[in-house]
């Protein structure tokens, strides 16, 4: 007794680990309680309690292949959500702008890619294939650069140091403009992503494991790999290059960065361009899963719960948040959705994120909010 009082400091585990243990412990206790309830007959089969608390887990246990598939689908969706969220985070960190236009940038970049490929093969008569696809990719990247430059010149520079909600509004204006412009140039009809021409795999592999089958699309694997490579590349870029250091400096404090001679304008162009490239990659991946149309813009809204979960300023937050939301919503929809008539995916992500937010208002990885009078 006296010993414990004498040495209060030096906890065995770091606070984060303790937190994790607590959460795991809570889950374990709940699971035990459910098992006990079912076993004791307090929750007969068919009762609401059984349907909500027990049946989904029994389902998971009995159909492990489906469970694995659900997790995999959630993982893939999570990676894609994380990619969109990444675009938001990059811009928010460096320029303090909540870039509502990220969603339309996804559509716009993918449209530029597919549209320029179409123009080159159909109007200019170039042979369809990888070469032209790469050319189109270069055009799309160049377009995103021009866009970043124009945004910096026309929107950001005159609005520097404004309230965040006004910057948000400006990006809403940008969204309207890009929708109108994109539809004017490329037309409103959906286009097919040039998946094969870009050298992306299209087949699928079926694993007959776990007493069933788990189907894995090569494209999804490619998406996960490309996303990881890109995130690693960005991390390297931020950590070890001159521009990356400047970027981090700007993210820390605009004024301090300016005073040591970092050009804010240059950094903003770079950041918006990077976000544009991230958008392009996202657009290719989503486009390959369905097609490239303006309806894709709505998908970007899925990144918002990821953002509040992970924190607006944290790259790892975007990734972890994306995975949590992705897996959480696929599991929720698959196992609990039918109880509510299905289609709960649209709001489940927000509820998950809200649940986390109530305990950590700045998101999982966000910077701690310190308020002073």
């Amino acid at each position: 007794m006296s010993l414990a009082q004498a040495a209060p400091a030096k906890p065995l585990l770091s606070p984060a680990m303790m937190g994790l243990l607590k959460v795991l412990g809570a889950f374990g206790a709940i699971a035990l309680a459910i098992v006990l309830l079912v076993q004791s007959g307090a929750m007969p089969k068919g009762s609401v309690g059984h349907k909500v608390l027990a049946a989904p887990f029994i389902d998971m246990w009995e159909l492990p292949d489906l469970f694995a598939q659900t997790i995999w689908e959630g993982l893939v969706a999570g990676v894609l959500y994380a990619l969109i969220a990444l675009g938001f985070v990059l811009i928010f960190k460096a320029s303090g702008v909540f870039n509502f236009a990220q969603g339309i940038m996804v559509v716009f970049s993918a449209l530029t890619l597919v549209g320029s490929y179409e123009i080159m093969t159909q109007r200019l008569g170039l042979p369809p294939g990888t070469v032209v696809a790469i050319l189109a990719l270069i055009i799309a990247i160049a377009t995103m650069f021009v866009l970043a430059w124009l945004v910096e010149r026309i929107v950001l520079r005159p609005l520097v140091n404004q309230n965040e909600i006004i910057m948000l509004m400006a990006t809403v204006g940008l969204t309207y403009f890009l929708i109108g412009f994109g539809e004017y140039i490329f037309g409103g009809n959906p286009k097919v992503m040039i998946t094969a021409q870009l050298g992306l795999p299209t087949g699928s592999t079926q694993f007959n494991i776990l007493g069933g089958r788990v189907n894995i699309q090569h494209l999804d694997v490619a998406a996960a790999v490309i996303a990881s490579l890109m995130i690693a590349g960005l991390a390297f870029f931020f950590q070890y290059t001159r521009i990356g250091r400047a970027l981090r400096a700007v993210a820390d404090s605009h004024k301090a960065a300016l005073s040591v001679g970092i050009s804010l304008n240059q950094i903003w162009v770079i950041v918006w361009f990077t976000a544009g490239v991230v958008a392009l990659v996202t657009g290719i991946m989503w486009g390959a899963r369905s097609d490239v149309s303006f309806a894709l813009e709505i998908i970007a809204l899925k990144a918002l719960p990821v953002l509040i979960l992970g924190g607006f300023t944290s790259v790892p937050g975007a990734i972890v948040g994306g995975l949590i939301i992705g897996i959480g919503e696929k599991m929720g929809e698959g196992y609990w959705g039918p109880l509510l008539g299905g289609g709960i995916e649209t709001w489940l992500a927000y509820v998950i994120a809200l649940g986390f937010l109530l305990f950590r208002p700045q998101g999982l990885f966000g910077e701690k909010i310190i308020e002073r009078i």
Partner: protein
Amino acid sequence: MTLKKLAMGAAFAAATLGSGFAAQAQDSIYFMHNTYRTGAFSGSGIPVGDGTRDYFTMLNNRDGGIGGVKINFEECETAYDTRRSVECYEQGKAKGTVLYVPWSTGATLAAIPRAHIDKIPIFSMGYGLSASAVGDVFPWVFNMPITYWDGANAFIQHVAQQEGGFDKLKGKTIGLLHLDAPFGKEPIPILENMAKQHGFNLKLYPVAPAEMQNQSSVWLSIRRDRTDWVYNQGWGAMNPTAVREAARGGFPVNRLVGVWWAGGDDDARPAGDAAKGYRALNWHQTGANFPVIQDIIKHVVDRGQSLAPKEKIGENLYNRGVYQGILIAEAIKNAQAITGKKVINGEDMRRGLEALNMTEAKWAAAGAPNFASPVRVTCSDHNSQSAVYVMEWDGKAWKRQSSDIQPQKDMVRPLLEEGAKAFATSNAGWPARTEACQNNS
């Protein structure tokens, strides 16, 4: 500076508000057609709009209009948004359109209560309010050739055919994959009814409009439920995604049957080989091998007046636009014949639509022999519940898969009448039909 700008803006606004819309010159028939070439549903909206537009341009170019009167055809863009559809309706009304074609269920619902007051008939071709098929209650609304309820009924008939009889349906699981909006939920009552009758399990798989392109969890549920057949009541970007996801999840695509709005070429083509076998209901033929389509190519496309790329002409949704054009043109002809006037108005158009009787001979006369099954509208039946067939995607084009399926009128019609009655009750003050019945020859 600021003041000047404000003043100029105000002046511009005043000029617009004041001028209003002058009535059209009375030597042509004005017809305003809603389209959505922008927005989330443009993929389905563009080809349909192109088909109707090209058909009327062709009539003007080839015949100088209908009955010697040019058709003043104008498009109004709605972007599938109800508020803009209301704008289009009001503009059409101010300009004196003879017919309102809403092209969205929301717009139809907003327009139906006004039709009999503004004397503008509404033609919602195979969509809108199913119950508006009852002409005794809805004299101003037409929704031929088929309702969603008939469609669901035909789908179950198709499943029964494939499984070898209605008695084989017992114990099967049939799913409805639908857009989570009133449009998508429309077939549910009929399917529930038939599930009870034939003993199959009905499972619902809603897809929220925001999740149209993100359907993986829905298809996981389909796999879990071991669903045998899936009926796809989708529209726009939802359809190509559904076909792809079916193939991804290992669901046999030839057991995925789309409603007629899920049968676009662009719904199936993007999935490539994986879409081979995808089925959809349809009520008209595809392809360009009809004199009317050839005329469109000759008189419109080759003159560079079409908005559609040449290779899209004759695709399913394009032909659906043409189909709509043929029905409307026929109704205009009827109206001219009935009234003896050349330039008709909305009231005449209503009579023309009610006298519509597209026999096989009429289809042939319109340059579309065997293009579609006959459509016969009567005073009490504004739908005709025509036959549909099932088509199958062979990787390049749609091919007919089944013979004509006649919806079970005796099952659907009472439900339609019930729905119409409910509508009249909940819209207290709904007027009884006073419009005289047109002799349908």
